[in-house]
């Protein structure tokens, strides 16, 4: 049998679930299967070879990223994982369908992401040409790489002719259709200004301020012109930023049918932009969130309280010496937000990195997993060194030579990751230790997907200068779920920006397809919904980016559905090839 149906997946899973209930893990619902899955290749930070190398080493523990996507269209979610050392190979892990993976990056032509002049920092799957095959953007300090998916598991490097050749110290990218012309455009965030940090001609390329730095790389917007051609239209979009961007995230903040944008900046103010529906953005920062001076690291949008509006989770730095606290921006519905991180218990996650909402127990409430930790070195702390510099009168922070070398010292290292269980949209309770997700490695990105089609969301976690983690979700199967693969016909093919209103019982859930939100990571394009005890979705309303609405009723739970724009019925999901 070459193919097997969704029903077969469901039946197969029942067996898995029964086995899980009897498993010795007891109340622990995640199992670290990194080794078994053959995903344990470590990330290595970039070492620099320039006069400032010993200083830069303390500030470039970045580049451990993951992007989830089914690049070969076999129905199973694959992984692209970046390394950063000079001769480090990026990895394309093909999902074998049995919770093991095979690195096929070299054969696919996407392994070479690092060299003396480039360091991989992030990656993004997107469908540049709407052909239904995922293309790949490798985001780099240096020059980005654009790989065209040419089928049969192979990619062609089309960067040179793409218009994406400009030097940038890029660290984040999202792809969404900002101008609603039916394809996804690229929004790229850069950390350092566009100076060659491998061989800087000036020492003045560090942040000029710890709180209001405006000498970073900002954000660049590339319009997708089709045929793998992109044009820099940053000026036309109204986005004019020079901050130290660490992450970007998009969502329709006001449910008006277009995608708005949040930009998280290190050393300065996060920004919130509202889309006018034609791809021009207005900066609403002051009225929406106010001016902050924190160290924004992550942008994640989801409707954590199921009130029909997308909220935002941003990590900052919270430690003994710097008590910034994270932001959980509750969407007030009028393009303003209120930070309720303290009230919900999500305020302090240490030196935060990626934070992702996902419903690990399928109860219908989005839980939150948060990475943290900067550099876990020796027992000596770098904090006094850095503060000695900070309090020096008249110090020029922009000059890298003024920054003390970190050496082997620690800075906010050995921090325990946090898994917050959503207590019905009111509070979050840390369950990381219970589920074995409280690693102390220097976590960076999180890729969330149901890698084995068992209806339970698994996690791939990247760590700087260390091996990643692959956690299999072993939740007892007493909650229902559904998953949707969306396909745009008039809208962009991956349906980025499509909103789903899913009603089961007396609750309606609001979810959407995002184009790569979250620091150093991209989760599945599929929309997963936990349905708690409801075996049926009473009503599903799909709002495509074109504005077209489709409604479906009485969908059986515990299924993966394919929804095609304009098609009258959900199409049962079918994997191309049985891989067991």
């Amino acid at each position, binding site marked *: 049998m070459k193919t097997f149906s969704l029903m077969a997946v469901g039946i197969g899973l029942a067996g898995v679930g029964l086995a899980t209930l009897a498993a010795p893990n007891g109340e622990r619902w995640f199992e670290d299967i990194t080794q078994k899955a053959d995903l344990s290749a470590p990330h290595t930070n970039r070492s620099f070879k320039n006069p400032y190398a010993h200083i830069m080493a303390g500030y470039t523990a970045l580049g451990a990223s993951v992007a989830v996507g089914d690049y070969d269209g076999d129905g199973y979610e694959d992984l692209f994982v970046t390394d950063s050392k000079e001769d480090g190979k990026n990895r394309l892990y093909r999902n074998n369908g049995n919770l093991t993976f095979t690195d096929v990056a070299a054969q696919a032509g996407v392994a070479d992401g690092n060299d003396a002049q480039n360091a991989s920092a992030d990656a993004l799957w997107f469908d540049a040409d709407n052909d239904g095959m995922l293309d790949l953007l490798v985001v780099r300090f240096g020059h980005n790489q654009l790989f065209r998916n040419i089928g049969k598991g192979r990619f062609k490097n089309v960067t040179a002719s793409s218009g994406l050749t400009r030097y940038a110290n890029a660290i984040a990218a999202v792809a969404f259709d900002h101008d609603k012309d039916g394809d996804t455009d690229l929004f790229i965030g850069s950390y350092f200004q566009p100076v060659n940090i491998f061989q800087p001609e000036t020492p003045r390329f560090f942040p000029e301020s*710890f*709180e209001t730095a405006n000498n970073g790389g900002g954000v660049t917007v590339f319009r997708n012109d089709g045929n793998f051609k992109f044009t820099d239209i940053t000026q036309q979009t109204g986005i004019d930023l020079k901050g130290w961007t660490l992450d970007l995230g998009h969502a329709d903040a006001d449910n008006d049918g277009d995608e708005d944008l949040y930009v998280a900046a290190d050393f300065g103010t996060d920004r919130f932009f509202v889309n006018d529906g034609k791809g021009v953005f207005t900066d609403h920062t002051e009225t929406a969130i106010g001016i*902050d*001076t*924190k160290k924004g690291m992550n942008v994640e949008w989801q409707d954590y309280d199921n009130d029909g509006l997308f909220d935002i989770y941003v990590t900052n730095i919270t430690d003994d*010496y*710097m008590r910034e606290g994270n932001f959980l921006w509750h969407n007030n519905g009028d393009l303003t937000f209120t930070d309720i991180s303290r009230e919900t218990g999500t305020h302090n996650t240490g030196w935060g990195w990626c934070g992702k909402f996902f419903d690990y127990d399928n109860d219908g409430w989005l839980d939150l997993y948060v990475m943290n930790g900067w550099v876990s070195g020796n027992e000596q702390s770098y*904090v006094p060194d850095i*503060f000695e510099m900070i*309090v020096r009168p008249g110090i020029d922070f922009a000059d890298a030579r003024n920054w003390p070398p970190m050496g082997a010292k620690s800075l906010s290292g050995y921090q325990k990751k946090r898994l917050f269980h959503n207590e019905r949209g009111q509070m979050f309770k840390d369950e990381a230790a219970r589920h074995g997700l409280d690693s102390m490695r220097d976590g960076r990105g999180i890729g969330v997907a149901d890698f084995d089609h068992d209806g339970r969301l698994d996690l791939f976690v990247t760590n700087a200068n260390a091996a990643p983690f692959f956690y299999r979700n072993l939740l007892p199967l007493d909650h229902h779920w559904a998953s949707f693969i969306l396909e745009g016909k008039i809208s962009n093919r991956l349906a980025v920006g499509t909103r789903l209103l899913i009603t089961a019982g007396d609750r309606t859930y609001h979810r959407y397809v995002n184009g790569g939100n979250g620091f150093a990571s991209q989760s599945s394009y599929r929309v997963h919904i936990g349905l708690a005890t409801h075996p049926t979705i009473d009503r599903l309303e799909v709002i495509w980016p074109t504005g077209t609405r489709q409604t479906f009723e009485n969908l059986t739970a515990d299924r993966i559905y394919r929804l095609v724009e304009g098609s009258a019925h959900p199409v049962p999901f079918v994997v191309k090839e049985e891989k067991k």
Partner: protein
Amino acid sequence: MIRLLSLLLLVVAPAAFAATAEDHYQSARKALTARNYPVALDAFEAALNMEPDNIRYASEYRQAVIGAAQYDRCIAFFEKLVAVHPMASSAFLNFGFAYVDKIPAAGSITQVILANTALTYFSKSIEIKPSWIALYTRGNSYLYWPKIFGRASLGVSDLEKAYQMQKMDRVKRSYHVRVYISLGDGYWKTDDIDKARAIWQEGLAQFPDNEQLKARLAREGDALAEYIDSVLDPNKRVDTNLQEIWTNL
């Protein structure tokens, strides 16, 4: 004769009707009641220019500054004031407080710079006159620094001196309870929990209604740590109103 009298009046009148520091202070209070911050701040500054070491004027001036969020103006004013009056210990103390008052309105890194600068002026105040209030203030300020900076022991040292001073005082003053609280916090921060509890107990014997001492003594372990961390959170505004000092002199 009339002409001579007129001349005399012209000479005497300005002196007779020149505003005193107290006049300016009262004008400031009046303006403050009317929430007229610009006038109030001007008047407070006029009063302080005449009496730079007046702790009451300075304290109320700073509270008005907090209300008006005019932190930089306040810092600039005290900078000039201490330059003109380099031996005014109270002015230096309040100069330090002006930096402390700005901390909650600042970003986390600026907070460190402000706190560090405040310590410089508290030290100058102590150098001029090692008063109870200056020692208590600097000692307490050290406790806000994270453990990694190792400043808690300096705080304990200052607070122990303030403690000795108040023991010599024949009058039990309400503000003395602050040293019992902070010295205990200092001992706690330097991992001497027994001494911390002992000093809090001693304080409670002296001030049996004090809720802060009761709260500390009622907690142990993580709960106590959480409580003290919350008290010493730099994002929370520290009460730098010195009214208790002059009303209990």
